[in-house]
């Protein structure tokens, strides 16, 4: 890990209903290249909103988000370019049901001229091999199990060669026996040095893989630190209360 900041967020606010709902209420943070950050917190505290702001799926009400020193909240910025560098994995996979697995993975790289069709397919097949799904390349998403779908969703995002990967509760929609296979892929990715922000309830994953754990509540970062600090010695009362409930 070096000290280059990949993401800088300052004063980030997201309000709904003219400020009646303050999903994010002033978030400041920085992410270094190669860092793995796990975000935890009670339901409705703004974890998804925060993650989705980072590629402007939610447009912030206030504040700045710098991706490699470009402020993506600036209206003049072409967000499509920046989204190519930010992979996202969703709770409900969001694979495209009308395309084969291979097409799911090559659509964006080919359309966005990141690779020729042949190169993109070759790469996609390699990726599928890594996650043990090379024989499902011609299958449609409906034919896969939840765990398989999520592994495809991860490598689909990786096909764009992103600089950072966002995961919003990637295992929450899975049957328990499939959680492990998805977490394994994520661990491998972390070990390869990918910068990752992960919202999850898998505290074991957080302990094992995270460089930093962030506890959010009421739209702000309440506390952050190493997994050691957060799980074994939390300072904030809210953090303690939350961990008591989930651990």
């Amino acid at each position: 890990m070096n000290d280059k900041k990949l993401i800088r967020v300052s004063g980030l606010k997201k309000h709904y209903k003219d400020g009646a709902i303050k999903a994010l209420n002033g978030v400041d943070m920085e992410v270094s290249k190669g860092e793995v950050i796990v975000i935890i917190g009670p339901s409705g505290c703004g974890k998804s909103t925060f993650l989705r702001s980072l590629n402007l799926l939610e447009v912030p009400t206030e504040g700045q988000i710098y991706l490699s020193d470009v402020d993506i909240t600036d209206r003049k910025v072409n967000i499509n370019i920046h989204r190519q560098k930010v992979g996202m994995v969703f709770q409900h996979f969001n694979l495209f049901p009308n395309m084969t697995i291979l097409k799911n993975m090559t659509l964006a790289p080919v359309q966005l001229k990141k690779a020729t069709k042949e190169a993109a397919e070759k790469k996609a097949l390699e990726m599928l091999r890594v996650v043990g799904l090379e024989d499902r390349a011609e299958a449609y998403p409906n034919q896969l199990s939840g765990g398989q779908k999520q592994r495809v969703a991860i490598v689909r995002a990786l096909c764009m060669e992103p600089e950072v990967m966002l995961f919003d509760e990637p295992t929450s929609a899975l049957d328990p026996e499939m959680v492990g296979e998805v977490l394994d892929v994520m661990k491998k990715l972390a070990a390869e040095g990918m910068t990752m922000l992960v919202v999850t309830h898998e505290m074991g994953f957080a302990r094992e893989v995270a460089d930093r754990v962030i506890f959010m509540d009421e739209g702000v970062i309440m506390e952050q630190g190493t997994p050691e600090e957060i799980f074994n010695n939390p300072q904030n009362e809210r953090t303690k209360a939350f961990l008591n409930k989930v651990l």
Partner: protein
Amino acid sequence: MPEWIVKLQKDFVTAFIEDNRWKYLVEGIQNTIILTFFALILGVVLGVIIAAVRTTYDKQYEEIKNPVGKIFLAIGNWICKVYLTVIRGTPAMVQILIIFFVIMASSDNKMLCGIIAFGINSGAYVAEIIRGGIMSIDGGQTEAGRSLGLNYVQTMWFIVLPQTFKNILPALANEFIVLLKETAIAGYVGVTDLTRGANIIRGITYQSLFPLLAIAAIYLVMVMFFTWLVELLERRLRKSER
């Protein structure tokens, strides 16, 4: 042979065979199909444009940066809304009379007038079918497309619209069938469609039973044929996901 059978036979001959009167029905079938087909094409073209304007306005208005583009989109959206309200709020018969006797009064191409009238009418319904279809696609699909860096148009074209098309196919087919039957009123403004064909025979022969039964049967067969075609297409589309 009982007398009533003999009479029916004679009526049948009068209605269809004498002077080759069946040709009125054949011409009617042709014209009804031409009218329906081109009206539907016009309707789909209008419907796609309107649905595009309306959904782009709903989904994309906030994201557009060019102020001039924003104004155009807002005006376009407003026009589409007025069109939808007027067309869906007035009887098709009235719209057709207005097109024939007011807007296109100077044209004597009745078929063209009919295509335009029914196309404009159908466009409103098609537009709402398409828009409903687009809205029924899970928002996660758009988000996944956009998060990969695809722009709005690419996401719509490759991801949302193909799924929409499959979902709305039954409703579109239904609209086609509704339109096919609705063209029966085109005879009122002089298009020699199928119903008009039967009416011409009735006028000449003073007989109603056979001409009217015949066109009812013909409409029914056409509708059943198209229903079957659509089922075939649907099954093929569904297979691509199994």
